[in-house]
């Protein structure tokens, strides 16, 4: 019983991020897609995320597109599209924050 959350906006969308973070439960996973990839380049956001007992993922396509691969402040897992599908299978549902 765990949820894969996806979020697709940069942390500048504060309301969206607060709602998403409030919904996380231990054992959930958070996949930051599209502009949410920018979160991984912001130390304050990543520090905040460390308080949650969750796994954090990024899509390599989004990271590369945005030129972020050398700028990541975290050991968030960078995965490919195939692994996105695997994650969706491993969790009982996928909830999208957009």
């Amino acid at each position, binding site marked *: *019983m765990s*949820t894969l959350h996806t979020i697709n906006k940069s942390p500048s969308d504060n*309301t969206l991020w607060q*709602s998403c973070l*409030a*919904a*996380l*439960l231990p054992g959930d996973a958070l996949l930051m897609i599209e502009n949410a990839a920018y979160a991984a380049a912001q130390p304050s956001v990543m520090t905040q995320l460390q308080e949650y007992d969750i796994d954090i993922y990024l899509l390599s396509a989004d990271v590369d597109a945005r030129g972020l691969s050398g700028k990541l402040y975290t050991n968030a897992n960078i995965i490919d599209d195939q692994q996105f599908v695997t994650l969706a299978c491993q969790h009982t*549902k996928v*909830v*999208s*924050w*957009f």
Partner: protein
Amino acid sequence: MQSKSILLILSHAPYGDTRAKEALDLALTAAAFGQDVSLLFTQDALYLLLKSQQPQAIEQKNLANICSALPMYDIDKIYIENNTSQTKHITAEQLILPGVFVNHNQIALMIRDHDVVLRF
């Protein structure tokens, strides 16, 4: 047809864009198909429930009226994000429908406990 529990989380205000209206359409359809639908009003979606809406001049349907039809579609599980109603200074008497006020913890558990969760 088997049934799944569906939680629809609304987060957008009426009228400014079509997101709230399209989410309500989805709720009504799923309920008309016999699905077990729960609705959670968060953030600006709380404004959907304000009784005092009068959208005639902007030529839109009154979304409060449509919300008031939810019980007729057997959507009786209506939840309102506690924090939202406090920050917006909206009281239960100003709403077209009664709802159960829930906090962030309860929302996290609701997301866990439903089969399908869609957020608009």
